[in-house]
């Protein structure tokens, strides 16, 4: 279908203009590798749009559409319904959106898609701000992080996307991290096999927006999990599971200090964040016990 100007090992071109060290790029490749070529992708504006094309050229070998920031989930619904009307039950429909396009701007259409129980896989890669337009804070920006719209540090906590999905009682929702690729790929496979909507919320460290050395992307993603700042969990058929439950959380200090966006935190701010992260983790464990 496409004129191939450059060879690639998988479905995604090797030379994509995501920043050096971008976690989103690694997530994108792994998600498409698991889903395979019988997939249609919907991408809204944001850094992931780097993959959907620049004029006549595209960086993916599968069909896709670049939609508006509000409407990823609605477009996925339309494509899925169209396929079903043609009797096609095999093609996977994938929405691949950033945090701003999911927890803020695209939230109502995502909510509608989940309420209607559309069989669509929705992936939100979370770089914790509006990166593509210059690092504005989103409602996924964590407490204390500096962005261009929260220069002194974000004064409020982030939204809990998987909790929102669980409130719609969809069959499968999970978080994942780019540092744990086997776990991530297993979850993509589960999402593909789910009969109904599935949502994956994937932590995507961003060297440009978080201000750290690009070589540290995986190290930072791992530290987020080990400190409890990013909890690996699944919500499957009404039950919560915590993957790799931690007996002890590592102190958040080293994780925060490795990133320029937390530069203006003082020691007592870090101590407060530590309490907040511990409490949040403990509450999560309790929630999982209530199943």
């Amino acid at each position: 279908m496409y004129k191939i100007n450059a060879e690639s090992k998988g479905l995604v071109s090797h030379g994509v203009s995501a920043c050096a060290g971008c976690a989103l790029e690694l997530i994108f490749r792994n998600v498409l590798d698991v889903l395979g070529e019988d997939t249609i992708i919907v991408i809204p504006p944001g850094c992931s749009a780097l993959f959907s094309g620049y004029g006549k050229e595209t960086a993916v070998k599968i069909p896709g559409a670049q939609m508006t920031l509000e409407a990823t989930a609605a477009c996925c619904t339309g494509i899925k319904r169209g396929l079903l009307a043609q009797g096609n039950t095999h093609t996977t429909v994938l929405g691949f959106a950033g945090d701003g396009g999911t927890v803020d701007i695209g939230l109502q259409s995502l909510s509608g898609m989940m309420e209607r129980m559309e069989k669509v896989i929705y992936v939100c890669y979370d770089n914790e701000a509006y990166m593509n337009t210059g690092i504005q804070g989103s409602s996924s920006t964590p407490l204390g992080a500096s962005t261009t719209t929260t220069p002194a540090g974000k004064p409020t906590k982030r939204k809990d996307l998987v909790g929102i999905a669980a409130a719609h009682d969809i069959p499968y929702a999970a978080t994942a991290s780019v540092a744990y690729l086997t776990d991530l790929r297993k979850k993509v496979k589960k999402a593909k096999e789910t009969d109904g909507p599935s949502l994956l919320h994937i932590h995507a460290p961003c060297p440009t927006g978080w201000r750290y050395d690009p070589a540290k992307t995986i190290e930072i993603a791992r530290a987020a999990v080990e400190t409890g700042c990013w909890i690996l969990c699944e919500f499957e058929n009404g039950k919560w599971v915590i993957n790799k439950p931690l007996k002890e959380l590592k102190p958040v200090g080293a994780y925060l200090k490795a990133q320029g966006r937390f530069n203006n935190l003082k020691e007592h701010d870090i101590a407060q964040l530590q309490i907040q992260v511990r409490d949040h983790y403990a509450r999560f464990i309790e929630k999982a016990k209530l199943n």
Partner: protein
Amino acid sequence: MQRRPEKPMKTLKSCKVLGPVATIFDSANTGSWRIERPVVKFEDCIKCGTCARYCPANIIDIFKDERECVVIDYYYCKGCGICANECPVGCIEMVDERSARKNDLQNA
């Protein structure tokens, strides 16, 4: 004030394609961005594949039976340093790209 569309949609003649439509699968020469280049010490490599798994550009190949067991495609490598940072035995070194290029030219 926004102007009304010249013609209502219904009166438009057949309009099959909503553009722009990308029809060419292509790649940019992202290797030209590189400031530092990853160089592998083949003797120390344990061929675990960690570097290949985490390379965001998916351009590392492992050849277990070859002397040059880790091959990096420098046409695309952005020099992010993730491979060097994640290698469990630390056998990837990031070297200055300009001096590496000078060496390439001398050896060519």
